[in-house]
């Protein structure tokens, strides 16, 4: 089964996919922006400020998802000695970092009109900031140890420490008294968000997911070409 993970076999597909993903992303994002900024209703309490949710929440979901994927792939790759898992992890990290930054900045902008402050050392916000630093440390480790085989071990250890923070982010609003509101969308129980707001939120999430896929594919292709460049040096 693992032979299908070989970069040579994947490159044929990944080199052609970005242009189609980019096109689909532009279409979905256009629909999402129209829904989020024009068609969706304002909130009875927060008025139009609620529209920030359509960029803040998808960004937060995706950054958490990407870090979880990076951790899973790193551990899997480390146990089964599959280098391609590390290549995929490394290619996922830049979009994870940017989505984390978007979640933090848009959260801060949203905080001003709703809480009256740009920043609070609240459990949810602080744990998101900690995740941001884990992304930075992970990417810096790749930069420093790229030419060293130790990089696989070091990045896996970083992700193992970082993944402990993910449940803290998720449940921080339940475990502690926070300024941040509890989750409005639950998979296993009834969500408190109205369908007219859920629909644009899901469209924006799809658009953001497509963007992270696009960045991943481009970065992955770049990493493969880098490897091939080294191969040409050895010829």
């Amino acid at each position, binding site marked *: 089964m693992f032979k299908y993970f070989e970069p040579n076999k994947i490159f044929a597909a990944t080199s052609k996919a970005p242009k189609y993903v980019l096109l689909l992303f532009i279409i979905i994002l256009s629909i999402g922006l129209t829904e989020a900024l024009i068609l969706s209703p304002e909130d009875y309490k927060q008025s139009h400020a609620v*529209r920030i949710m359509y960029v803040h929440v998808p960004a937060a979901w995706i950054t958490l998802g990407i870090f979880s994927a990076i951790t899973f792939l790193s551990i899997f790759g480390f146990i089964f000695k599959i280098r391609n898992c590390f290549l995929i992890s490394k290619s996922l990290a830049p979009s994870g970092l940017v989505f984390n930054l978007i979640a933090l900045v848009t959260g801060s*902008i949203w905080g001003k009109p709703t809480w009256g402050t740009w920043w609070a050392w609240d459990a949810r916000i602080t744990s998101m900031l900690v995740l941001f630093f884990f992304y930075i440390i992970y990417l810096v480790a790749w930069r420093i140890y790229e030419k060293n085989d130790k990089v696989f071990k070091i990045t896996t250890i970083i992700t193992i420490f970082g993944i402990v923070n993910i449940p803290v982010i998720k449940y921080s609003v339940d475990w502690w008294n926070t300024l941040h509101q509890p989750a409005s969308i639950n998979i296993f129980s009834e969500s408190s968000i109205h369908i007219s707001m859920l629909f644009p939120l899901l469209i924006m999430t799809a658009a953001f997911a497509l963007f992270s896929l696009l960045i991943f594919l*481009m970065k992955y292709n770049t990493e493969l070409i880098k490897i091939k460049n080294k191969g040409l040096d050895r010829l």
Partner: protein
Amino acid sequence: MINELLLMNGYGLYVWSAFAFTMFSFLTLYMIIKTQYVKERNKFIAKFGTLNSKRAAFAKSQSVNKEILSSSSNI
């Protein structure tokens, strides 16, 4: 209508700046990754050009190399 969309009951500045920051981040990341991709591909093509015919034929026999050489910058 346009004024209402821009001002959003006084929340316009917050809403538009959040969306603008998001789009700016997308564009910046896309440009950075694209630049890295083009740089590596050009490096590959330049290195390929310096190979002698025997080595070039061997390198070209590998499917990935063929794909890289044939993929013009169309992302």
